[in-house]
């Protein structure tokens, strides 16, 4: 159960970073999808590690996912 929850949380964060990264989406769409994904992941982590542990893990996992997404997918600035 815990592994499933952690998997769901990580997947939500990956989805969130991909949404933020996507240029084609409008800002409002990005904000709505990002918030939903963020809430899902925090709820999943909080179920596994408790409230405080869930928040800390959520932030740390977001940093890792963002970092790996940037390195794996990579994106040039506009004009390059």
């Amino acid at each position, binding site marked *: 159960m815990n592994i499933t929850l952690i998997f769901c949380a990580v997947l939500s964060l990956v989805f969130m970073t991909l949404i933020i990264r996507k240029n084609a989406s409008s800002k409002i769409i990005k904000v709505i999808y990002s918030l939903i994904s963020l809430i899902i992941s925090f709820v999943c982590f909080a179920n596994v590690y408790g409230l405080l542990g869930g928040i800390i893990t959520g932030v740390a996992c977001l940093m890792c996912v963002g*970092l790996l997404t940037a390195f794996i997918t990579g994106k040039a600035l506009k004009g390059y």
Partner: protein
Amino acid sequence: MKSITLKKLFLMHSWVGVLTAVLLFIVAFSGALAVLSRPELKIWANPELQSTQIVPSSDINTLVNQYYKQVPSAFGENIHVFMPSGHNFYLLTLVFESHHGDENYSQEVARVFQFHPDSLALVDSYYGPSKEFYANKKTDAPSYIGEFHADLHLGRPIGLILTGFLGLTLLKSAVTGLFIHRKMFKELFTFRRSKGLDIAISDAHKVMGIWGSVFNIVIGFTGAFLGLATIILLPAAAFVSFGGDQDKLIETFTAIPEPVVSHIEQPTNIDAILENAKSRFPKAVIIDATIMANNDANAQVYLRLLGGEAVASQLLHYRGDGEFVKSMSSFGDISGISIKVIEVLFPLHFGNFAGIFIKLLWVILGLTTALLPLSGMMMWLSKRTRGSNPTLSVQAYTRWNRFIIGSCGGLVLASFVLFPLQIVLNYSVDGALQNAFFGPVFFYSWLGWLLVSLLPMHHTFYFKLTLLLCGAALSAVMPLNILIGQNNIMNFNSALVVIVDSLFMLIGLTFIWAGLKLKLTKQPILEAQTV
């Protein structure tokens, strides 16, 4: 913000980074490894722990009472039971302490009995000053790296002050970095790997800095606190609140006070207490137990727990008859938000408040913290080789690169060499005698590789050699374990050993692959000049 202020911040960011880059890499890399040192790598390093880390409560109760009868009554005042959980000792350890010494010693003295976690056979015993016992306890490769991270093996307080100071510089670099990168959101995902090495390094530095900023700030702050707390903060707090009396301050914050012995006999129910703690916090690990005034009506038992839903470590207080009194922090039952914050600082730094998933996050983020000063240093160097009037010559650029590879790559190599060494030592050297080997092998291999940087060779070739040697050291772990190890991938006795050995092989092969793929260039700064 005014451009002049930004320029000052940029200068501060650059110079603090350049001056502390190598030291920051050393502390951050060893820290990233140290996250996994206890209990995972410690269990891997000690075959005794591989069989089991859980001793039945009834057996602990029997052993404590059996050996309590054998030691003089003064040694029963304070009994410590260190569980073989992989956090402290590699054996189940019973320490019977007399705080006031005995007929042979005028200082705190201990009688210690150590048992194999699985068979519970007596493996080792000790009688002498308590301090000597704790100072000379058996260490292993992961613990050695963990201790190196704490004080760089420079001893205390110098080592602690240095690592604490490096925490402050990391904090300063992380904060100034956020201010000077004005295109923060735009550069969240900018990583142009096909635009040349310089641009890729610059992008990587920014991406790691932005995404890892919260982590770097937290690690910098907690690291500075852990390093400087006992050296600067404790005397300062004692000066402010206790008229400079540090002993009184420590006494106030000690969670385990001495009980009043009633001399009325009543068996201490250790078995029931341990079982109660396990049922209350099933996800937590009991690290150790302290039994005060054993088998007395006023006996008190304290259990230290790690993990579970509580982020900070907990101290459970029981009466000797098994009645639960309270759960508190390791600083004692002190109210106030500041104590709660201090409690959380420890797990936030170590990443040990839950399972392996969080530890892996800490390892990844810790490695980016290590790479940040290096990438910054490379940017600083290459910037000085560009333009019509470069301030750095080709030779100087190559020498600087060799120094960075020798000092930082040398540390990685020295750390990796300790793992195959551990397998060899487990086969050939008994117990605490192993302690004598880690220091010389670690520091001489590091120094040796740093001295190689003095040879007139191309830095790319030197880097290639470093990668290949690091890969060879890690890849040697699995074959060595198969040949001479007690538990290995062939007999599959321990799942943890199989996973760790496989990961070492995978990482080692990746290093070798990267080393072989690295193309040697004859023009050291051609790329830097053309950007």
